[in-house]
């Protein structure tokens, strides 16, 4: 048997088998007999034994590099640190099943309608009809703003996660697609509501966002780096993230009525 080379010695140290191929490539694992053969060779060959002993000494020294110990309750400490941050994400974790997204969107829409209706019903009776109509519209608008603000935030998260992905190979975007699918359903409801309240500013952005979300939902679940780059460029070109941020910011500002405005009377 020829001398063992360094790679064979390393393999032997780790209890792995396998012979390098002709081009220096490693072939498939060789027979278990390799280990026995290597051991037998080391017993008989002084130079290989010296080399192997040197390798063992070096790796034993490396083993001496200490790692700070963590107490037995370290896992509990980690959980306490991340629990709050997980809470914010928990609502984005979706259970599988198409019925769920429709039920959630339906419930959100129903809540929106009921709130607007109830607010209108209990508005003071002595108010003039014209004022009453205006107040109802404002209440409806505010409820819409709260819901849209939350929805925009979630949409933004999905888009940012996709645009920030920096893979070397293809990326599984099925989780983002599922969330985008949920958001598409909501987009349509909010867009229709915004159209009814005459808020063209919200309608316009939701129109654009819906197109992007639909395209993401229909994209292949495995995206290549090139496809992700194309998506990133499209989002940049359309400035959709910027528009979402601006609208989100405006919505948040309007959720709390200005004390100086007549809306305070609501």
């Amino acid at each position, binding site marked *: 048997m020829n001398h063992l080379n360094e790679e064979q010695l390393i393999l032997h140290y780790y209890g792995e088998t396998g012979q390098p191929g002709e081009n220096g490539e490693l072939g498939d694992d060789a027979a278990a007999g390799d280990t026995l053969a290597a051991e037998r060779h080391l017993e008989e060959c002084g130079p290989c034994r010296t080399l192997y002993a040197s390798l063992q000494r070096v790796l034993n020294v490396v083993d001496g590099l*200490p790692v700070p110990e963590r107490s037995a309750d370290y896992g509990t400490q980690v959980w306490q640190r991340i629990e709050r941050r997980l809470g914010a994400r928990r609502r984005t974790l979706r259970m599988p099943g198409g019925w769920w997204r429709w039920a959630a969107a339906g419930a959100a829409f129903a809540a929106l309608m009921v709130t607007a209706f109830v607010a209108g019903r209990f508005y003071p009776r002595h108010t003039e009809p014209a004022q009453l109509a205006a107040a109802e519209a404002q209440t409806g608008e505010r409820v819409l703003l709260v819901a849209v603000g939350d929805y925009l935030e979630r949409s933004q998260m999905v888009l940012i996660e996709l645009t920030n992905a920096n893979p070397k190979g293809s990326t599984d975007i099925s989780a983002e697609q599922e969330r985008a699918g949920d958001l598409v359903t909501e987009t349509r409801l909010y867009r229709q509501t915004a159209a009814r309240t005459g808020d063209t500013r919200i309608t316009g952005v939701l129109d654009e966002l819906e197109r992007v979300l639909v395209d993401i939902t229909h994209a292949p679940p495995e995206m290549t780096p090139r496809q992700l780059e194309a998506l990133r460029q499209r989002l940049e070109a359309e400035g959709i993230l910027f528009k979402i941020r601006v609208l989100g910011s405006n919505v948040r500002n309007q959720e709390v009525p200005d004390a100086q405005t007549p809306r305070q009377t609501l």
Partner: protein
Amino acid sequence: MECNDLGLVTKARMGDPDAFRMLVERHSRPLFRLAYRMTGNQQDAEDVVQDSFLRAYKQLARFDERASFGTWLYRIAVNCSLDLVRSRKRRNELVVPADSEMDDSTLGLPSHDPAPDRIAMGGEVRERVAEAMTELSASERTAFVLRHFEGMCIEDVSRVLGCQPGAAKHSVFRAVQKLRRALEPLVSTAR
């Protein structure tokens, strides 16, 4: 009743926070050891552990139940460690020699890290070992840490690295060869 990782993942996916808590409690310590060996710094390792669990939770829907949760989590932790080291590099906190292979940069412990654990190590040998580890590229260091310290088989190392087993083996070879060259004179004189 003791539940295996897969059972806990399934429950966590259904929205059971206790299930994910149990996974965190079960895997935090080994994850810290891995993160520390990857980053060489306690605070960074703590950050990596937390970020890894946050990422894992976020990506739980993507976890393939045929795979090992531990291996999947290790992969996330390795990526978090590499991200952290790269961001450290961008902040010019590291001196990074060019590496000819792949596009991964050389990982490094700060050479003169004043952290208490480094001081406690003491001795020229340990200092030299830490320095030698800084000379490994990202893939070499990852492969070496997983194979040597974590005892993973090459197949699992390749899964964590996202490469073929042959490439993982080569990374281990290169790492050991570099370490041997750097440390052999030291262990020879120490005998």
